[in-house]
């Protein structure tokens, strides 16, 4: 019992849970291990995965960003509408990236410079940006005129679709950013002890602003890929995304109290959520019940975090 506890609460606890879940699902759910299903599973988690990379940074800072779902929808709308308007997919993508970056920067500046609590500030932008997405399209889905846009999601290399490559590149980039750059280490230092970090000469405001700016940018990428996959700009897409993303991060061992995050953990967290959803679909579990299961998973994730903090606290 004691051993099991140490295993689950230790650094490798997530991997253990992941492996167990994977094996169980492989055995009990038919068709789960097929190549088609695996690719489908990965494609399904792309949005959550991309946004989790930067949410990890925000949480490591001891902040949170609730506006991610809205930014994904808004950036997707911008990408589709700009592409339709200019006839150029590249310009559409650029416009969406700029839109995401701007929202992120606004979040960051409001939080870092005006000293507004991140939860409140992003709760506000969440609604504002969702409003912008709805206004820009008059509340309707917008179809894509330029067929090249679909390639972003549907084109495959070596049988693997583009979004999965993007996801892997994101994992690599943000793993590097978190572990090997001054920015990443400062982020963890600030989350662990903001006062000490400031007195040690860390530029706290700058770091916070860029965390949120990157978050906006990642949401834009996710929004572009999402609209390509669903072949239209949907102002009501990605509602509730923030909760899935936070669940994935927490499941991945990111501490809500800041200062603790690993990329590998977040990857596992994302995959656990993806597997749960995928398995429920394969087993034809009604969508209503899926909400239930997702809620329980989130609760368990937070519980795990609290237990782990307490275990750590005792060691200190």
């Amino acid at each position: 019992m004691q051993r099991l506890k140490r295993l689950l609460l230790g650094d490798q606890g997530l991997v253990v849970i992941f492996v167990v879940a994977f094996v169980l699902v492989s055995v009990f759910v038919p068709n789960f291990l097929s190549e088609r299903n695996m690719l489908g599973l990965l494609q399904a988690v792309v949005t959550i995965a991309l946004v989790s990379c930067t949410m990890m940074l925000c949480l490591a800072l001891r902040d949170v960003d609730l506006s991610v779902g809205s930014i994904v929808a808004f950036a997707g709308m911008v990408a589709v509408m700009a592409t339709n308007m200019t006839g150029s997919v590249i310009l559409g993508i650029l416009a969406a990236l700029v839109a995401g970056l701007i929202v992120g920067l606004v979040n960051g500046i409001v939080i870092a410079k005006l000293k507004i609590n991140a939860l409140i500030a992003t709760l506000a932008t969440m609604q504002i940006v969702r409003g912008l997405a709805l206004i820009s399209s008059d509340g309707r889905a917008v179809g894509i005129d330029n067929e090249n846009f679909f390639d972003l999601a549907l084109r495959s290399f070596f049988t693997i679709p583009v979004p999965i490559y993007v996801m892997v590149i994101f994992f690599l980039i943000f793993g590097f950013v978190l572990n090997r750059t001054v920015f990443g280490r400062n982020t963890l230092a600030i989350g662990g002890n903001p006062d000490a970090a400031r007195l040690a000469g860390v530029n706290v405001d700058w770091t916070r602003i860029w965390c949120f700016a990157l978050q906006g940018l990642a949401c834009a990428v996710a929004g572009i890929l999402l609209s390509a996959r669903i072949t239209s700009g949907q102002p009501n897409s990605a509602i509730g995304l923030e909760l899935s993303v936070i669940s994935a991060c927490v499941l991945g061992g990111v501490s809500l109290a800041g200062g603790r995050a690993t990329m590998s953990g977040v990857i596992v967290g994302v995959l656990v959520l993806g597997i749960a959803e995928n398995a429920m679909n394969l087993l034809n579990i009604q969508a209503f019940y899926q909400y239930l299961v997702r809620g329980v998973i989130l609760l368990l994730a937070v519980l795990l975090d609290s237990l782990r903090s307490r275990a750590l606290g005792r060691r200190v």
Partner: protein
Amino acid sequence: MAAFLEFRNITKTYPGVKALTDVSFAVPAGSVIGLLGENGAGKSTLIKTLGGDIVPDSGEVVLAGEPQHFTATRDSILAGISVVHQELQLVPELTVAENLMLGRFPSRAGVVEFGNLFSRVRAILNDVGIDVDPRSKIIDLSIGTRQMVEIAKAAVFDAKVIALDEPTSSLSSTESEVLFRLVDRFRREGKVILYVSHRLDEIFRLCDSCVVLRDGKLIVHHETMEGLTRHQLVREMVGREIQDIWGWRGRTVGEPRLSVTNVSGTKLPVPASFEARAGEILGFFGLVGAGRSELMRLVYGADNRHSGEVRIAGQQVQASDPRRSIRAGLVLCPEDRKADGILQGRSVEENVAISTRRHFSPFGVLNKRREADIAEEFIKKLRVRTPSRRQDIVNLSGGNQQKVILSRWLAEKGVKVLIIDEPTRGIDVGAKAEIYEILYGLAEEGMAIVVVSSELPEVMGISDRVIVMQSGRISAEFQRSEFTEESILAAALPDREAA
């Protein structure tokens, strides 16, 4: 008169520190006893024992002949003890009346009878002579008034024993008078009052007897205040045998490195000026709350300066920002190592590299090898005892954490001024001597070092010059040849009542 409150052989040890050693004394009912001693003498620990906040390792508190074994604050309150701490325990958004009756609201069917509540509290406040509206919220009251409300709680509880920890430190002289009348009144009602204060005038004005603590030991119990002099009490407070663990040695002092002119801020309204020179160790002494750390934080830019300027080697540091100070060559090892110094959960290596890494991280990409080399260099140089550079810093002892923070700054090239606040708080004697040795070495290399300390022997032991602060202003300055414990402590005690 028979003793009502008695401390019997109270001993309390913290890792590395004997906070109280075999302290015994007794107080009769209807009297006020003064509790005297320097910072860290054990006064607060003794009061916490009484309040049930800490459990002594051995010994007991005896009330009216009954030995008590408090394990929680609640036990002590139920036994009729009321402790008024320096940090007030009031709910800011509630009214005075609610605060006083918290937990015992007059109510009917769960609905608070506010009329009843307010009239009862008004009666109590009138009775004890505190002029405050029971309907005002705590947050709207001055600090002094809040303190009075806190003391009124003791009257509400009808406590038999009341401990007041530095009650007048935030009171004006009129408010203090009200407090003194209240204390006199408590005495007439037969209560026991433990009165902790650095203000000897108040001790003479109020107390029937007094106790002097030093290094956790009871030095003397004066059963009466008659025939006592201020001078004698001060001598008893400081008069320890001086051992030379300091190893001070003379140095040549050079040009001014740090010039502070008229610096003020929110927590330090009175502008302060001072100067520190190359090769000099400048001590800052004062009682807790005298404004030393606040001044240093302003100088470093940790808090915003409202006025004044800071120059490092003649160069003015623009704006209050630690990063500018670091670039100019001014660094700070903060007072509260845990809250402001160490980066919890991060390795020793990262704690060293956090500031200096900007010099060797092209495009923000870390140079792990370089960080490791620097960490290893300083672990060796300052003899940091850690299993490895990858060890989480929270697992190191206080002395070694302090060395890691020092390493952080020594790794920065071109530090001209080092401010170190409470360099050896919570650090054992062996590590203390090592830290002093590091400081001497730095001074000999031409750094200006400002040491803030609440330990008088330390300040006197290692400084070339001492500046004393008292109630938020610089009150005196002494050259090493002029150091005496009496004169420095006298300059720190807030007796010549200004407030």
